[in-house]
């Protein structure tokens, strides 16, 4: 039986209570909504791109501790990254929460490794990846909202 503390790590609880970059970017040149219709989780992510670089990124919305902490930590991790770097990080993050990453890979994603415990809870993968899917859609210029259902 997985230990709850593996899922609800201190960092996750702390970010869910006090999310970083929790604001709107006025006039953001990238924006997308992500929602999970079955849960009612709903976030809007904002990004300001300069050329190929994510100059600023933020989010707002409501959802569970996992989805909110994931959105918060994501904004910290991808600020200043290029689009290609974002895609690489998203891919590694996705592999980790779905249980497809090796321990070595985990080291490469820094603080995001606190979400490794999610792989023991398959139904919560959609919570952990919601903001990532939304940001991915925003950066690719998709006007549609994304859904993890």
């Amino acid at each position: 039986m997985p230990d709850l503390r593996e899922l609800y790590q201190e960092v996750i609880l702390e970010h869910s209570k006090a999310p970083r970059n929790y604001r709107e970017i006025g006039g953001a040149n990238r924006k997308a909504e992500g929602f999970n219709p079955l849960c009612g989780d709903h976030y809007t992510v904002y990004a300001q791109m300069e050329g190929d670089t994510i100059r600023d990124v933020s989010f707002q919305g409501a959802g569970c501790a996992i989805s909110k902490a994931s959105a918060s930590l994501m904004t910290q991790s991808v600020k200043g990254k290029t689009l290609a770097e974002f895609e690489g990080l998203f891919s590694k993050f996705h592999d980790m929460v779905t249980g497809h990453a090796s321990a070595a890979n985990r080291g490469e994603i820094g603080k995001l490794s606190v979400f490794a415990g999610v792989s023991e809870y398959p139904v919560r993968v959609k919570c952990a990846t919601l903001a990532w899917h939304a940001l991915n859609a925003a950066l690719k210029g998709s006007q549609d909202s994304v859904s993890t259902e």
Partner: protein
Amino acid sequence: MSAAANRSSLGVAPLAAAGSATPYDVQKIRADFPILSQTVNGKPLIYLDNAATSQKPRAVIDAITRYYETTNANVHRGVHYLSQHATDEYESARETVRRFLNAAEPGEIIFVRGTTEGINLVAHSYGRLKIQAGDEILVTAMEHHSDIVPWQILAQEKSARLRVAPINEAGELLMEEFARLLGPRTKIVAVPHVSNALGTINPVREITRLAHEHGAVVLVDGAQAVPHIAVDVQALGADFYVFSSHKVYGPTGIGVLYGRSALLNAMPPYQSGGDMISSVTFEKTTYNKLPHKFEAGTPDIAGVIALGAAINYVNGIGIDRIAAHECELLAYATEVISAAPHVRIVGKAKEKAGVLSFVMDDVHPHDIGTILDQEGIAIRTGHHCAQPVMARFGVPATARASFALYNTREEIEALAAALRKVREVFA
């Protein structure tokens, strides 16, 4: 918490078993449900997600096996022994349902896939026949999506108007507002007998009386009522009444639409094909009589027979004794959950059945659900297919514990203890 004194006003039969000497032996009942003996995450399963679907007693599981081992043949078709035997069992289940709802005739009982299909049948068939531009369909603010969307589509198609009767902070229908919304344009009223998100028991008898004064017909969504309280469709004055087998201890994929025969006879078929015809030529088809006009194609024969077994099981215990047991559980759960730290109950109607929705400060229902799951406790978390209800109470989602005839006070105590654990994790 339906006190016996209030039952008559709710169209609920009086407590037949009141004063009965036989005690309610919940352990004996639990032994009838094979699934309840398992462990989940190393803990005994505590199943409190009955409003989503109920577990099945051995009698229902056996009915399905017995049907396929001894009876399987198509119904209403063959002259051979098995076909007649299968038809007899299938029609016998219809009679069981008729008695359970106290419908006047077996032809008024239509087997469908579930509550959703029952509502869709009425919206398509009765709705398209009767609704014209400018007409109104009245629903309530506590509706399940399945009792909103079919009417919304119908209203859009016919340029009719969908109106919504509001509810108060307790989650009760505002009857004065409801009455005010009724008018000469109101053609259909759709209400839940019991709200799936709040547990509110609606005063259906009063609703049908008011609606009928304006010439509207009333569809009652009984999905959450049938497992918990005695239902008499004639006493309620329901024109249509729908429920799902799987919420009342029967299999999934089968449900019931009750309709008054005068209405059903006037309605065009919903689906067409075999079994629903009397004669077919390439020029003209004559439809079969009720109920077959609405049962095109080979039905879920095993499902119908097993639903009959489920109702027989419920009758064997007695719906009024079940109602009394669950009423006590709900009262106890309300007491202990209210006392849990930082918990707020959503839906405090005076008349409730089966359902306890709640939220906890600073903890999302999904996180509650995951932590409870670690304790072997199954509850529902989310919007319960009732997003307008969530919006009304200003919450994105709730946690919902819902009770059945096999739940115990000890399980409710375990739920309260697990909620304290949630608080510890999020402290």
